[in-house]
């Protein structure tokens, strides 16, 4: 198992336990069951000996998830993940065969696009129903399974690529990353529906993840890992906490909401800021104007985060304790990410 995937798996497991213990789930048993199956699948993906096996597990997971709820029709629910897997499979065929260099470039396109399609990023966004259960919605891909799939896909496929293909792959990732970072952060601010705003916020974080993966230096990989961790252990638990208030369409403006907004916006001393520092390092090493674009886009996180913070409602009791735990974990990761990064081998 790759160390990055192992770290993300532990994070995902932690988030699941957190969701069951502190979350407002109406049926925690079912959440635990679905999440547990997902965790098993993710573990299989992480330990898969090759990308083909990993793809097969992703395919199985996609069908299982698609079968949970049928409010959108099974065919529609399967569309994006199966299309994504087909893309990646096609890319692997193109990359493995001998032939002109352009085939390998198409392979890079296939893997990058497939990754975006599996997770549900622009321009391959999944259809979305805000009323769906989290385990059945595209946010499950974005926040729970997607990080491990991304880590495995990117890191394993990089081993197959030639330097030219890798450069193309990196460029596509950065392009998609910037697109998602900008679109997601602005949309999280202006979209009307609160649940959709959370989805866009996930998308904007993924934008930074893709940029980090695209920066082919150690700092970029570290940044991507930290952002993935922040999605799994920060944004996902907070989203789960906000579900009751989102259903009731209530917003609250108390200090705890502002603290949560600070966490979501990537302010110091939380993990998002550390990831941004690493992104700056990577961008400076490779292409400094990218740092300027990143800096500007990072400012766009703030209005959306303020909005999302208000959607948390007024947490009490167990949920307040849960939020405190999320804040503590994020602060620890933000101030001292070295142990986690060392464990992940970056």
């Amino acid at each position, binding site marked *: 198992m790759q160390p990055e995937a192992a770290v993300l798996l532990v994070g995902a497991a932690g988030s699941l336990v957190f969701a069951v213990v502190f979350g407002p789930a109406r049926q925690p048993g079912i959440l635990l069951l679905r999440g547990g199956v997902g965790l098993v699948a993710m573990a299989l993906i992480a330990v898969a000996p090759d990308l083909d096996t990993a793809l097969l597990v992703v395919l199985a997971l996609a069908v299982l998830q698609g079968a949970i709820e049928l409010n959108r029709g099974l065919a529609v629910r399967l*569309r994006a993940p199966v299309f994504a897997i087909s893309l990646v499979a096609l890319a692997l065929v193109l990359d493995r065969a001998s032939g002109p260099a352009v085939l390998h470039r198409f392979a890079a396109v296939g893997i990058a696009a497939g990754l975006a399609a599996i997770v549900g990023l622009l321009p391959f966004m999944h259809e979305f129903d805000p009323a769906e259960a989290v385990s059945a919605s595209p946010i499950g891909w974005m926040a729970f399974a997607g990080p491990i799939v991304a880590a495995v896909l990117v890191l394993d496929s990089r081993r197959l690529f030639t330097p030219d293909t890798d450069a*193309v792959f990196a460029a596509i990732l950065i392009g998609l990353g910037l697109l998602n970072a900008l679109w997601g952060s602005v949309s999280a601010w202006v979209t009307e529906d609160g649940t959709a705003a959370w989805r866009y916020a996930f998308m904007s974080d993924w934008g930074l993840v893709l940029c980090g993966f695209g920066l082919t230096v150690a700092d970029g990989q570290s940044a991507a890992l930290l952002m993935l961790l922040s999605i799994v252990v920060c944004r996902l638990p907070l989203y789960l906490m906000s579900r009751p208030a989102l259903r009731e369409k209530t917003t609250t403006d108390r200090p705890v909401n502002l603290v949560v907004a600070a966490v979501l916006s990537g302010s110091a001393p939380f993990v998002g800021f550390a990831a941004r520092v690493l992104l700056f*390092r990577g961008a400076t090493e490779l292409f400094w104007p990218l740092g300027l674009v990143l800096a500007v886009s990072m*400012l766009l996180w703030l209005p959306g985060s303020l909005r999302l913070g208000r959607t948390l409602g007024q947490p009490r009791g167990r949920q307040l304790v849960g939020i405190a735990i999320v804040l503590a974990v994020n602060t620890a990761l933000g101030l001292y990410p070295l142990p986690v990064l060392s464990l992940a081998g970056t």
Partner: protein
Amino acid sequence: MPSSALLLPIALPLVAAGVIAALGAAGLEVGRLVSAGAAWAAVASILALWLPVRSTQELILGQMGFGSGFDLRLDAVGFAFGLMVSVPAAVVLTLQKRSWQEAALATLALGASMAAVEAGGVVLTAIAGGAAATAVVLVLDTEDPRARRPSWAMLLAGWLALAWAGTILQVRGGTAVYSAVPVSSITWQVASLLAVAALLASGLLPWRSWPSQVWSRPSLRAAGIALATLYPLGFYILVRLYDMGDGRYPLPAFDGVLSVLGLAVALVAALRAQGATTRREFFGEVVPVFGGYALMSLALGTPLGLSAALVALATTAALAAAVALLPDRASIASLAVVAAAVGIPPSLAFGSRVLGIEATFEAGDFLGLIGLGGTLVWVLMMVAGARAAGLPAGRGRPVAETSPAVALGIAVATLVAGPALALFQASFANPAAAEVMPSAGSLGGSLQSVATVSTVLPAVALFVPLLIIGSAAYLASGSSSQRAEARPPVLAPVAPRALAGWREAVAAARVPEQYRTILNLRELEAAASGGRPVLWLAALVALAFAVTR
């Protein structure tokens, strides 16, 4: 003392914040006691660390994981700024009652700010300063979510810019540690980024920014904390820029631009001050005026200018605490604070401004014109102060959060401390200037006079008689409280009205009814988020085409 003691000024407030939060959540209100205790303990630890040794101490604890090590450093600069941050914070935390949530956040802000000042490198300063900014925004919002607070985006932009500059130094120069950055890494681009970060962090802008706006809040508890913990940090960055640049900024034009900007900040604040409609509004401009003067002097690139700026900043810190404790009513305390703020001789403000203006003349070339501008600003502030004596007090604030006696004490202290200017400069400002400017050895004088390049300012000999004369004049006037009447402003504020008009015109601008846009963002969003295969295929084709180029 072991080098690990450098953690004390940071750890004490942070631990205290945790204790306050834990006990507060359990129903025990110990905020004031614990926060004040921690703040004064931080002050004491800074003094205990520095005074016996008076040389640089470092603590290196290893890498943190984002290219920066946990390096702490206490030198003369850190000592000076540490006191500027911790002392006013300690004063307001001691004298003002606040909820446990506010106390915890305020103490957190103090701890983060101390970390920013003690940090040994740019990136760590950025993280700590960013954390302080976050904490300040939280404490302001906790106190009153509807009142004005600093633009979070602006603060975040400043600290992000600093983080970026730090990473550039790490990548290009190999390190972002203040004492080890190669001078050649401080290009004008990096210096510009650092300067922008500093200006945004402290709100040093030639229009009404947060250091002025926070004073219009109904309560001034959080405003005092914000000014104490956040305002000095921008100046700290500019002083460290000298440190990294071997005592100078990369281009002479830098000095001129920043000095002019400082003058502009002070001038615009002085214009607002003289047009204030209440005394609270006047006090709201005191910090920006002082800050502008400090920036003007600091950016000159001379040891005297830097030294004068540090004295001005120390005075600013003291007056920020005084204003935060002042009640909104006519009193001897408010009169004293007004006098201290306008720089009546022989106050510390007076002395620092004299030195600052002197430094502009000694800097040479057109920088002397900046000094003339500084004189004009001083005159405006005098006028504003005279007006302020007769203005209505303001909207009123809770009496429980005021302490007129302490405010009076602070103001009087800055007024009578003028004769000790040379002593203050020699013990507080000059060591810091010498730390970052090798040429600061030229700063001479004794404990009674300040020696500049071209002259000597006999502080004791000149200021003591002024103090005696001033005191006699005040006593002879027989006025123990203000009984003046409000006078109209000398200069009517045209620009704000014009700006307001422009803003209204822009806000009222509408696209003509007949116009139909081809770009409908809602439809674009619906198309992108609708899961449409056509879009997916089109994107794939576009990507495939792009990689064949």
